[in-house]
């Protein structure tokens, strides 16, 4: 009788233990449902690990109401780990997030990655991931990243800035060859931006209100409109040309 009772307790303990072990092994339920994000991102970013710096010409069209910017061209310089320089005489606003190609932005060691769903993109199978930068100083709060295609690459990125601006960038690639390397690099990026309502800024000084003829010439930027689009075409990729650090110093 006593032996039977001991057996039952031992069996119960074994059951609890095995259940706990299984749960620990499997991790959280949602993470177990899809591919391992760390592996996927490592696979996607691996071809770009050869890039130490790059240069590319961009031509962009900004179509945001009340944000009238003429079409512009610029040369983008990038150097690892995350330095950008836009060289142009024009006023060139490029949306943060995915408009500027940064292959190292989504490195697993710099972000919290999680798989969200299998979500086809324009009929193409893709996995949707959530990426949260670990650095609290980042201007982007989080990303949603669609990965698909063959070879696997980032098809679409939706970034949410600290200010609450959403920028959804659809990326189309071209195979670019340089010497013995060949990389899938962006050819066109179409960014759709959604600006949040920011409320009415308190008027600090009546003389400097937006309706004052005293200050209209030096008014501050009012709230941006609700939606807009930016289209960017990339051409003339070249990488690992040994860009000088001085290029990235703020003048």
């Amino acid at each position: 009788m006593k032996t039977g009772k001991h057996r039952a307790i031992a069996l119960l303990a074994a059951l609890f233990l095995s259940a706990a072990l299984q749960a620990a092994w499997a991790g959280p339920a949602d993470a177990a449902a899809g591919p391992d994000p760390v592996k996927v991102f490592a696979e996607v970013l691996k071809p770009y690990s050869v890039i130490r710096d790059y240069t590319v010409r961009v031509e962009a069209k900004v179509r945001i109401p009340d944000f009238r910017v003429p079409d512009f061209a610029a040369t983008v310089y990038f150097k690892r780990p995350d330095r950008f320089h836009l060289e142009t005489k024009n006023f060139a606003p490029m949306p943060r997030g995915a408009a500027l190609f940064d292959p190292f932005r989504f490195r697993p060691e710099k972000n919290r990655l999680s798989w969200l769903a299998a979500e086809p993109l324009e009929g193409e199978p893709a996995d949707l991931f959530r990426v949260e930068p670990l650095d609290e100083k980042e201007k982007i709060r989080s990303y949603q990243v669609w990965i698909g295609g063959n070879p696997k690459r980032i098809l679409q990125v939706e970034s949410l800035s600290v200010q609450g601006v959403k920028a959804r960038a659809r990326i189309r690639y071209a195979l670019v060859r340089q010497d013995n390397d060949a990389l899938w690099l962006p050819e066109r990026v179409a960014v759709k931006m959604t600006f949040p309502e920011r409320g009415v800024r308190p008027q600090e000084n009546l003389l400097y209100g937006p309706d004052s003829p005293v200050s209209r010439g030096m008014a501050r930027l009012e709230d941006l409109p609700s939606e807009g689009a930016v289209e960017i075409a990339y051409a003339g990729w070249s990488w690992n040309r040994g860009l000088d650090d001085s290029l990235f110093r703020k003048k």
Partner: protein
Amino acid sequence: MVRLVWFETIKTFTRLRTYIGFLAFGILVPLVVAGLKMGGQRAFERNLLAILEQDFIIGGNVLNGWFFGFFFLGALWVHVPIVLTLVAGDQIAGEGDAGTFRFLLTRAGSRSRIITAKFIVTLLYTAAMVLFIGVLTLGLSLAVFGSGDLLVVKRGLVVLPESGLPAHFLLAWGLAILSMFVVSSLCFLFSAFTDNSVGPIVATMAVIIISLIIITLPFEMFQAIRPWLFVNYFDTWQKVFDDPIPWGDILRNVWILLGFTALFFSITLAWFNRKDILS
């Protein structure tokens, strides 16, 4: 008439007070540009670009000479009337104060012709002053901060390509001159009322300051009288930097500014023709 204008021009431009404005802005503008270069530019970056840089990576020379030329034009036109009144206020009152009216009016020229000549010279001085400030601010700013597209921030943002900016600025200066013509003609009018040139200066500035307060305060009663005050049209030059340019509004404002100038000059003429210069 041309001889009279020439005579008045010599009189005006041989007086020291005519150059006070040129001297003041000749010192002030380089000082401000130097201040901007030595760190003041960062205040603009913080206030203007920081909002944009939250969501955009900005390329190009944004805070360039055109930008500061535009900024100066916007910031200084409230102060320009002060120096304009120094000369405009002295044109008629100065003669009364010096006791030279009787001598002047014994010549062949009629009162109307003499006053018209004085008025033309006042307008010439006004145009010269505005152009001096415009060319000085823009020239210095371009020399120090370089060129690029012009970023205009109002309700939203307009970027004007550099290629069209000389034309925009020439037109803006033209409209700024027209606005300042109203100030000078008002001061010229006040100058006809008195023999002391300080009075017209103070009176003109008082009118401008009170008008500015009235059009700025968001009270319903003040807003109703806003269209009747000439300072309401002072910012017409800024419309040149809108996209698209509201030509209809600009043309209407040009007529209004010309109307105010003509009105003030007509009253001056009428008053001066009846003015007792013997007592």
